[in-house]
């Protein structure tokens, strides 16, 4: 099987996918109601789409193609409201967060669809343990070469995005000490991590063909990279973000990625190189483990700064692009996370410290997701 051609799309357009948790409203454990939720929503006119995911306690929403932060937020709001309304009729809860804090993987039910059954049969418990919830952001690219250039340019900011979006401190009832434990589950898959350093679409096709010939992969879906090209959409897809607790945070993160991409395209502030990979693993670990306080090593000069300091400097540098793209409210919200609120992992830990019960944390997550005033 060979790679499909790269379908060009308008540069810097956005698309957002969010994987959501479906929980019961009794003890707030994950609950397999996805088929019912999708049935209730059938026939409702919505921007974008709402789809099943590998287990029946997850559902994925996705926006259509958006130009900027405002459009993303408006579409997410419509989708969120429709989902929350349907969930009320079924007396179930929906929430963000990268992991469910106390679900047991063994109890998860695989969604009855051939691809999901196949994934489950192949990966065994990994498929169920992969009950984690992420935000994916697509950025439109006019060509495959543009896509790869953007992919490697953005790679340097993956640790920072991980730290900002981290929302999975609890796994199987325990505090993992990580801000984003979700990414540790992703790492168990054979083709996770960084995409290979190839900078032209022709070379990428050759790489894909070599992989396909070994029989390891048959489509782009078999790569679980942090950022991967999505040729049929004409986009690159950033996959490191935990699903935030609110749509406002989700829209803000998408807007930030768009602004960074715009900055990279317009100013080419650095040339991505193969050596970026040397520090990538260290920086990524720091982001997952320590969140915004994690240390980040600059691949060019070896300087160490915290993710927080790097991000504040970044916000200053991309300000013009943020204004052009109506993203100032998004940057303001993220700046507040840096300076006051912390990331969503901080919120989850604070809530647990106050309530001393993970079920209660999930209940408050559900309330936060549904809150229409945020």
């Amino acid at each position, binding site marked *: 099987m060979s790679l499909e051609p790269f379908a060009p799309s308008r540069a810097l357009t956005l698309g957002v996918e969010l994987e959501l948790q479906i929980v*019961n*409203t*009794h*003890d*707030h454990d994950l*609950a*397999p*109601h996805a*088929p*019912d939720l999708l*049935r*209730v929503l059938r026939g409702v006119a919505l921007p974008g789409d709402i789809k099943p995911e590998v287990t029946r306690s997850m559902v994925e929403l996705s926006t259509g193609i958006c130009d900027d932060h405002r459009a993303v937020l408006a579409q997410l709001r419509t989708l969120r409201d429709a989902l929350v309304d349907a969930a*009320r*009729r*079924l*007396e179930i809860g929906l929430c963000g967060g990268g992991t469910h804090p106390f679900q047991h993987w063994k*109890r998860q*039910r*695989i969604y*009855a669809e051939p691809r999901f*059954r196949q994934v*489950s*049969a*192949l990966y*065994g418990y990994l498929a169920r343990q992969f009950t984690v919830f992420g935000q994916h952001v697509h950025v439109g690219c006019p060509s495959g070469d543009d896509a790869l250039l953007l992919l490697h340019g953005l790679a340097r900011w993956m640790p920072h995005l991980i730290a900002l979006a981290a929302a999975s401190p609890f796994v199987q009832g325990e505090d993992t000490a990580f801000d984003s434990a979700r990414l540790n589950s992703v790492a168990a898959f054979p083709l996770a991590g960084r995409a290979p350093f190839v900078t032209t679409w022709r070379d990428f096709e050759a790489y894909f063909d070599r992989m396909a010939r070994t*029989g*390891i*992969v*048959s489509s782009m879906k*078999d790569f679980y990279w942090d950022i991967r090209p999505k040729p049929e959409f004409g986009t690159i897809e950033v996959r490191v973000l935990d699903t935030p607790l609110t749509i406002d945070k989700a829209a803000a993160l998408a807007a930030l990625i768009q602004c960074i991409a715009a900055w990279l395209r317009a100013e080419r502030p650095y040339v991505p190189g193969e050596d970026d990979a040397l520090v990538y693993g260290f920086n990524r670990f720091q982001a997952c483990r320590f969140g915004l306080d994690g240390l980040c090593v600059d691949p060019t000069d070896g300087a160490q700064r915290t993710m927080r300091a790097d991000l504040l400097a970044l916000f200053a540098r991309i300000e013009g692009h943020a204004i052009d793209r109506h993203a100032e409210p998004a940057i303001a919200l993220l700046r507040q996370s840096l300076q006051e609120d912390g990331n969503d992992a901080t919120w989850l830990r604070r809530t647990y410290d106050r309530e*001393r*019960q993970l*079920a*209660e944390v*999930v*209940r408050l997550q559900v309330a936060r997701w549904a809150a229409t005033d945020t």
Partner: protein
Amino acid sequence: MPPVPVPALVPDLASPDMLLRVAGVVVVGAIAGEWIARSTRLPRVIGYTLAGWVAALGGFGAALPFDGPVRVLVDLALGVLLFEIGSRVRLRWLRHNPGLLATSVLEALAAAVAVGFALQAIGQPPAVAAACAVLAIPSSAALAGRVAFELRADGQVTQRMTVLTALDTLYGAVALVLLDAGLAAAGAPDPRIALATLAVSLGGALALAALLALAVGAAARRVDLRHEGAALLVLGLVMLAVLGAQRLGLSTLLVPLLAGVLLRNTTERAWSWPRHFGTAGGLLVLLLFVVVGSAWSVAHLLGGALAALVLLGARVAAKAGVVWALSGWSRLGMRKGFALSLTLTPLSATALVMLSELQRRDAGFGAQVAPIVVAAVAGVELLGPVAVTIALRWAGEGPDAPAVVTARAA
């Protein structure tokens, strides 16, 4: 020195002879449960019932009305299950989903009306038909809940089954109190006395339920009820309340069920304790279903068979018809609606406890009602849980079948 008499909470239960019998029932029930689970993959609760059923067939069944230690045991076990089920009922769901509210009210009403008319049509006296109609309202919340627990079922059918069975048990228990008051008023010189009795019965049950809910709520804020040891505190409180209801002559069904519902609906806070209170609750469940399975005799069965068949037919048709007809409105879909309608068919412990209450109030009248109800319960006791199992599996709410793992990649 003469031995100091130890005051026992329930003297009969503490007698060595009784304990021996309880131990025997536990062993036999557990063996039957394991046998069923291994040979058929059906829930163990069917094995417990089967053990009782066979005992009754041999003439060793529990006598009705439940009395002495048997009554204590049945009330306690059922009370614990009903409290747990009540604590899963979110009334706001009925507000957000009017189709579900309509389903709940109409399935209970239709069952009562259908059974009442059908029994009168075959010549039963109106009062007997009315009593049977009331006893036909509740579905077996305890049985359905236990089957779902053993199957580890989860999904809309399971969730709705819990709410509908809890609510129709609530309607049934209230209807029984009203029936009681009606019967008393018919025989009493002053109807005001009957009205006062009614107020005391319902008000008392509500007050005791509120007390229990308050106590459990207070306990939950201080200890972590997810641990089985801490959950024993809740178990103890529920048992105290049920025994209190028994002493005060209040409904032992209403008090725990209402307490659960009150607890769930007066605060948003998440409650979590081990389902069915872990091993201790499991022991009570085993005893309950062995006893309930044995509460019939061949004589009862022969005496009430025809009327029981009519009752069952009318009841199933009414309940299933309403649930299925409203499944579109309540946003469940036809297929799952059919599965849900099957889960409401069992008739078990609740009906027998209600019958016992009726018999204790008026032995003569109770004797007229008993053969019909007992025959009906004995007739579906084993079919009911099988129907629930099939329905939940068919709705896709049981666990996944094990996936076939191949060594092939992609």
